[in-house]
């Protein structure tokens, strides 16, 4: 599995309130949520984002609320992958559970800027900045999480597990 796109670059502590403000949480429709994705931190995001684009941020991405609407809004807006130095823990598990690819890679965060074209190879964790030609190696996922990701998220994984046990 691979992703390739243009980069939106953000800083530390991008919280779920700016990813999808609570005033829009009276719906859980992904397409509706995507219309307001990143609205309170980057009003241009929704206008500019294209299918396959990549978000790169610094520390503690997705901190705050447990709202799964946050990774859902990002996924539905067409973003193919989020790369950060670290993720807040609920955002991390929500992303894995719904099948939004996320990667922790501080070196890539140092070496990628807004507008760069970046490609990601999910099978080996390599992140390549096509604009600068530099490649970075992200942290590999533990086996359990690889299985979750391969099953397309938690529902698929539990269904597989249930089938294996019965």
């Amino acid at each position, binding site marked *: 599995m691979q992703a390739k796109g243009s980069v939106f670059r953000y800083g530390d*502590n991008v919280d779920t309130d700016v990813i999808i*403000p609570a005033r829009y949480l009276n719906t859980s429709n992904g397409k509706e949520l995507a219309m307001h994705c990143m609205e309170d931190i980057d009003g241009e995001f929704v206008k500019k984002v294209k299918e396959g684009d990549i978000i790169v941020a610094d520390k503690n991405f997705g901190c705050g609320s*447990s*709202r799964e609407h946050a990774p859902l809004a990002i996924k539905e807006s067409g973003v193919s992958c989020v790369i950060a130095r670290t993720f807040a823990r609920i955002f991390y598990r929500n992303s894995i559970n719904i099948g939004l690819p996320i990667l922790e890679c501080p070196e890539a965060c140092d070496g990628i800027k807004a507008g760069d074209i970046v490609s990601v190879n999910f099978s080996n964790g390599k992140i390549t900045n096509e604009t600068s030609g530099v490649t970075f190696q992200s942290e590999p996922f533990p086996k*359990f999480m690889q299985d979750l990701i391969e099953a397309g998220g938690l529902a698929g994984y539990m269904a597989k597990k249930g089938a294996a046990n019965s």
Partner: protein
Amino acid sequence: MGMTMTQKILAHHANLDSVKAGQLIMADLDLVLGNDITAPVAINEFPKFGRTSVFNKEKVALVPDHFSPNKDIKAAEQCKCLRTFAGEQQITNYFDVGQMGIEHALLPEKGLVGAGDLVIGADSHTCTYGALGAFSTGVGSTDMACGMATGQAWFKVPSAIKFNLTGRFSKYVSGKDLILHIIGMIGVDGALYQSMEFVGEGVASLTIDDRFTIANMAIEAGAKNGIFPVDEVTLEFLNDHCKRKPVVYEADGDAEYERVIDIDLSEVKSTVSFPHLPSNTRTIDQVGEVKIDQVVIGSCTNGHISDLRMAASLLKGKKVAPWVRCLIFPATQQIWKDAMHEGLFDIFIDSGCAVSTPTCGPCLGGHMGILAEGERAVSTTNRNFVGRMGHVKSEVYLASPAVAAASAIRGFIADPNQIQEEK
């Protein structure tokens, strides 16, 4: 190697003799919680887990508390989704408007959480129940759906930070000041993926409400959970509320901690978090003159009866400053009734405050107290992110009920020690 208190609870619920930090486990759940924002997504996902009924209708709690009483038609549809599902599944612990309270105050009050329990909730402040010696943590809607269907969730076993507390608070300083002080010290990701375990002789002086407030905001330091040992204060609360026998876990003497932080409670000062991060703290003497437009006293963090008593003790015989709105949100119907019987509402209303039915409303910028462009609020809630309580150019200052009440009287952020209390 020994285990932390959190690790012991996780090991027991995963049917393992021991676990270590970093290990991935599947664990059995004692309670699965959701609200009107997160549960509709979970209810939608629920059929994908291949079950037609929830794993245990007494171990699922649904509380429409965020945008209820319904703020608009879309919110009403979401609450209806919970109501319909609760009816179909015969969920015992469904609390509609009239029984509804803010979930993290309501569940302990209803006795749904006991010591030693493992609880997940599709709300980040589910970590509140660590006050009762339980492991509880916030998750997303898919985890909630999985929990409702299978009674299980996956966890990465956390390492821990030990907070060794000594001494006791000075006047007007409370659990809120301590947790803001800690977040200011370690940062909003200072306990990322970790447990915050509170121990030491200072714990005994903390009321159960202080402990709820402290555990509640563990997530604001990025923590997986915050947890207190079970002592007489815990047992007294559980005895009054929870029918089940407490299961008491203690950290092993040789448990490993990433960090140990010593805090003398007598040295903690009233603390305020400036916009736009809970870690952006200043002690009350360093605040300067910050003029305010609104005060919010309530929420899952500080809507307990002791919080309302503290606010009332300062507001008694005083008036809310001109051009300031002061909103009071008791967290549950029981707290509402207690506050009414104790005469606290007379004090609030005579001083010019508005008293609301329980709701999360203004805390997350939902309804019942949204800020306009450029407005500032002092709030006893838990987050002050950009746009949290309304307009993207509004500001939230987090504080204790004492500081919030003093600020309502003065019209700018104020030290409660500067307010002359009426007897």
